[in-house]
C-alpha cells in the first residue's frame, strides 16, 4: 500500500522524535498524499507501522480538519468563511463555487475533480477573501479570479501539489 520510498521518508520522520508516536500526524499527511485519503486500510497500516491501535490512530486523524477519512476529489478547494473573509464577500464566493461546480460545500464533483470545503481562518485576513487550493493560497479573490482558477483546474493547467 505504501511505496518503499515513502516508507523511507516515514522512517526519517520517526527518527526526528524522542518518541515515535510524535511522527503520527506528519505520517498521516504523507500517507494521505500517497493514498488520496485516509482509508481504513491506510489507517490500519499507519497503526501497524507505529505500533498503535487502529482506533487510536482513527481518533487522532478524525480530530484534524485537513485529514480526510473519506475519498476526496483530485483538487481540494478550501474557502475561508471566517469573519474577515466574510466581511469581504466569502459567502458570495462559496455560492458562486457551488453554482459553478454544481455541488454543495462538502461534496465532490461527480467527475471526482474538485472537493469544495469551507475553512476557518487561513491567516490571510489582510488579503481577504482568501481561498486555498491544494495547499496554495489565492488571495483577494473575486468572482472573475475564481472562474479563471476553475478553468485552470478543469483543463489540468494546475497540477496537484502535495499538501
Amino acid at each position: 500500500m505504501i511505496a518503499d520510498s515513502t516508507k523511507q521518508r516515514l522512517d526519517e520522520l520517526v527518527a526526528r522524535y524522542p518518541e515515535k508516536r510524535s511522527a503520527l500526524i506528519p505520517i498521516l499527511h504523507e500517507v494521505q498524499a500517497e493514498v488520496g485519503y485516509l482509508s481504513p486500510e491506510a489507517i490500519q497500516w499507519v497503526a501497524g507501522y507505529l505500533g498503535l491501535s487502529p482506533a487510536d490512530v482513527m481518533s487522532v486523524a478524525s480530530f484534524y480538519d485537513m485529514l480526510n477519512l473519506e475519498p476526496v476529489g483530485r483538487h481540494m478547494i478550501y474557502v475561508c468563511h471566517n469573519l474577515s473573509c466574510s466581511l469581504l464577500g466569502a459567502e458570495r464566493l462559496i455560492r458562486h463555487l457551488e453554482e459553478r461546480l454544481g455541488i454543495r460545500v462538502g461534496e465532490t464533483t461527480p467527475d471526482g475533480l474538485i472537493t469544495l470545503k469551507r475553512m476557518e481562518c487561513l491567516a490571510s485576513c489582510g488579503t481577504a477573501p482568501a481561498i486555498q487550493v491544494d495547499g496554495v493560497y489565492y488571495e483577494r479573490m473575486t468572482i472573475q479570479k475564481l472562474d479563471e482558477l476553475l478553468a485552470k483546474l478543469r483543463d489540468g493547467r494546475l497540477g496537484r501539489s502535495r499538501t
Partner: protein
Amino acid sequence: MAFEKILTRYQDIPNYTGTIEDYLAQGGYQALPKALREFQPAQLVEEVKKSGLRGRGGAGFPCGVKWGFIPKDPSRPKYLVCNCDESEPGTFKDRMLIEQDPHQLIEGIVISSYAIGCHLAFIYCRGEFVEGARRLERALAEAYRQGYLGENILGSGFDLDLYVHRGAGAYICGEETGLLESLEGKRGQPRVKPPFPAIAGLYRSPTVVNNVETLCNVPHIVLRGADWYASIGPPKSTGPRLFSVSGHVERPGNYELPMSVTLRELIFEHAGGIRNGRRLKAVIPGGSSAPVLTEQHLDLRMDFESLAAAGSMGGSGGVIVMDDTVCMVRVGEIVSRFYHHESCGQCTQCREGTAWLHKVLSRIERGQGRKEDLEVLLDMCDNMKGKTICVLSDAAAMPIESYLKYFRDEFEAHIRERACPFAGQGTF
C-alpha cells in the same frame, strides 16, 4: 516620525526573498554569535526579562519569566517549541514572518534554546501553512549547512536540532498544551494545568512554548540590548508589535508599531481609514476571541493593559475592523460558528455551549429569535467562562457578551422584526 521597523525591516529592502544570503546581507545571524560568546544562558534569561518582552501569541505572558520557570537541572532534557499554529481569526503576522524572513525566527529559536538549555526544538507549523512550512524547511537546511544549527554551533559547543512539525487543521493546537499533545501525535486536547509545560511539557519534560513573533524579537534584544528594547512603547508593553489589520479598512495588512499606538492611529493613519468613506461601527482589537470595541474606544492605546482596562484584550494583535453595514448578530453567528467548529469537545461546557451559542445566534439571525434568547445567551456565556480546562470556552463566550453589551438593540431588532435588518446590505 515613522517608527523604525524591527521585525519587518526586510520589507524596505528591495528584492528581499528571505534566503540565508539575504538575511546575512542585512546583518542577520549577528545576534547568535554574540549570545553564544557574551552571554551565559542565565544572563540571556535575565536580559529577556529585563527587556519586558511579552508573548505575542495571545496571553501576553512575560517571555523571560516563562523561561525562568524551566528547571536548571542539566540531566533532564528540555524542549523549545515555537508556536506557529497561527489560527486566531484576524491574525496573519506569523505566516508573514515565516514566509518572508524565516531566518529571523530560526536565529531567535537558536538563541532561546541556548538560554533554556534545550538541544531539540520544534516549530509547530499550522497544517494549512504549506508554503510557510516549505520555506521554513528550506531555511533550516540553509542554516544547518552554514553551521547555525546542528552540532557545535559556530564552534560554541552548543548543539541544537530544529525541525518543522506540521499540524493538520485544528485551532485548539494553538493552545500550548493542545499543541504539545498534537506534537506527541495525539488529539490536540489541552491538558489540565498544573503542571505547566515549564515543568512537564513535551514528553513530560520541561518545555517552553513561544509564539513566532515573540521569538523573532529575541535576536534584536540580544543585539541592541534590553534597555533599548524596553524603551519602545509603554513600560509594561514593550517592544514593537505586529498588528494585523483586516476588514473594512482601505489598507489592510500587518503594521509593526509600538503598543503606544492608539486604535484610531492604527485604523485611520496606518490602515488608511474605513473603506469607501463609511463609518466605523465596531472593531475587534486582538483576534476574534477579544471582546469588541466601538468608536468610543478609538483613543485607547493598543497595549495589553489599556485594552484589558477597556474590557477587551490585546490577544494576538489581530484587528478586525467593521463598518456600519455590518450586522452584529451575523458577526456573532460567524464567530460562534468558529468556536463551535473548533472546540475540542473534552469539556462539557465548551463542547455543548459553543454549539448552543451558535445555534441560538443563527436562529436570531434567521429571524426566529425569541425574547428570552438574549438572557439565555448571557447566562450560557456566564456558565461557559472560567470553568474549563482551557480558555476556548471563555474565548467563545466573551465576544458574544460584548456584542450584546454594545449592540443589544440590534439583537432585539432581529427578534422584534423577525428578520435581519441588514439583509441585502453590503457584502455580508
